[in-house]
């Protein structure tokens, strides 16, 4: 790896750590993931405590109460939804600076005038931030699993299953982060990119899940695939190869996003050697 790329990695690390983005992302994603099963279990206990009142009102909540207090998989599913929902939205917003915000502020003109190449500029962003999202998603899912075990009656989720669900949610998070980085760095408009990615991350999976319920080979419904994995009895229907291919599609799209960002940066490069730039 050349000096420029190493220096660029160092720059992104410093940005990630010193601006408190890292700690905020970690706290939000893990916090939401841990709170989700707590809220589910709490809702069940609340409804159980209020069951007499509901009965007087003519509503039988015993089924719901049983469901909410039943299995660890429900707790972990809610955590995965939070990670790829609110957690992802927070991470997208926190990454605005890296996804075109510093370009909008014109902070990249001096480095680019000095000779910073597009590949060295873009590559660290597409490694550090998506990988961080991936790692925190796995940690958050496992934390939610650990918290869910004492809260729910039935522990129907093994560690390996929770880990797999974490990987699937992590890949989903990586995918949208790569979109945001690509769109933001290509346009220099971080706010617009964030709005588009958040909208897509909310709407697209919902639309696609209505079109098909097996979620196979679809990189935009990985969180629903994670839910299938977690639901007791469904894992026998899933082959390892199916899951691997789904993840591979998502990774392929991330590579395309990186190439798009690289192409856009190259089109806007500054060549200060007194030559004409070759667009």
């Amino acid at each position: 790896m050349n000096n420029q790329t190493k220096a660029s990695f160092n720059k992104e690390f410093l940005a990630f750590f010193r601006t408190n983005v890292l700690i905020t992302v970690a706290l939000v994603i893990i916090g939401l993931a841990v709170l989700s099963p707590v809220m589910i279990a709490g809702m069940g206990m609340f409804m159980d405590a209020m069951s007499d009142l509901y009965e007087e009102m003519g509503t039988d909540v015993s089924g719901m109460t049983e469901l909410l207090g039943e299995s660890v998989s429900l707790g972990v599913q809610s955590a995965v939804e939070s990670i790829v929902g609110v957690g992802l939205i927070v991470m997208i917003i926190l990454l605005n600076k890296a996804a075109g915000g510093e370009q909008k502020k014109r902070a990249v003109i001096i480095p680019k005038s000095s000779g910073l190449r597009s590949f060295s500029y873009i590559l660290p962003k597409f490694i550090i931030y998506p990988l961080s999202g991936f790692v925190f998603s796995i940690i958050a899912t496992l934390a939610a699993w650990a918290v869910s075990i004492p809260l729910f009656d039935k522990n129907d989720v093994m560690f390996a299953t929770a880990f797999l669900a974490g990987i699937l949610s992590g890949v989903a998070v990586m995918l949208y982060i790569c979109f945001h980085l690509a769109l933001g760095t290509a346009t220099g408009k971080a706010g617009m990119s964030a709005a588009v990615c958040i909208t897509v991350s909310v709407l697209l999976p919902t639309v696609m899940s209505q079109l098909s319920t097996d979620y196979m080979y679809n990189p935009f419904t990985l969180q629903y695939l994670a839910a299938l994995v977690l639901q007791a009895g469904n894992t026998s229907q899933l082959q390892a190869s199916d899951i691997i291919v789904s993840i591979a599609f998502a990774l392929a799209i991330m590579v395309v996003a990186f190439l798009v960002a690289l192409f856009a940066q190259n089109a806007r490069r500054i060549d200060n050697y007194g030559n004409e730039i070759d667009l």
Partner: protein
Amino acid sequence: MLTINGLVKSYKHFPVLKGLNMNVEKGDVYGFLGTNGCGKTTTMNIICNIVPKDEGEIDFKSESMRIGYLPESPALFDYMNGFEYLNFIGACCDYDGDIGKRTSEVLELTGMYNDAQRYIKGYSRGMIQRIGIAAALYASPDLLILDEPTSALDPEGRAEIMDVIKRLADTGSTIILCTHILTDVERVANKVGILRQGVMAVEGTLSELKKRFGSENALTVLSQNTQETVEILNEIEVVENAVIEPYGDITVRAKHAVNEAELFYKTVTTLASRQIVPEGVWFKRLSLEQIYLGVNSGYLIPYAQQGGFTYE
């Protein structure tokens, strides 16, 4: 070093540059002047390949010339300190030598060595500009372009930046100083170009411009006894007229075909013979500010290409 011919640039059909010509020689400190929005930054951006040109030629007179660029109102990475930022710039430049040593050198050159451990977030505007200049200097560029380096700075900040630029100028660096602050230009520049309505209205060394637009046949006289002095001066045979200006000084204009030396001699000797000792007598020249305002208002344009001009 750099020659520009017929540079044209429009933004969405709005023409900014309409055939700009410019010539910068090695060692020049070129003051590139113009009103806000006239196209100075566009010209610099085109030279630095940040923005493509529509038409025209830019000849760098060198196969591979390195340009150091300080943009207007530079933004830096505020989560880094000065050392870290310049080390990063050193890597961007693919600097061959010891990056740490070079970083220390440019920090010393710009007077930022003692503040380099602090985060850029805590820097003043003047300090940010100095780090920006240090970054532009890092790879020892052949041409240094500074776009409004003192804009939005307080007088102390401006003085700091101009000291740095003066030191660089004294070492023989080739600098294009893009600004609308004329006192900064007069302090450091040897050559000036004034951009007006998309073309270079005037270009030349400061002394050439002052000679071209100045009153070659006029003096300024400062005297305690203004009225009496004016009456005496108007009696001198070589004097066309002597008038009291609004600020109290006297402008003495010579008749046609009378040279400056003769006018000066006659003025001083006549006043001395009449026991009047003036506080000062000097040749009347337009200041750069007067030239700039005259060019921008259009008043001096008809005289821009002429060899001599009498200012009225």
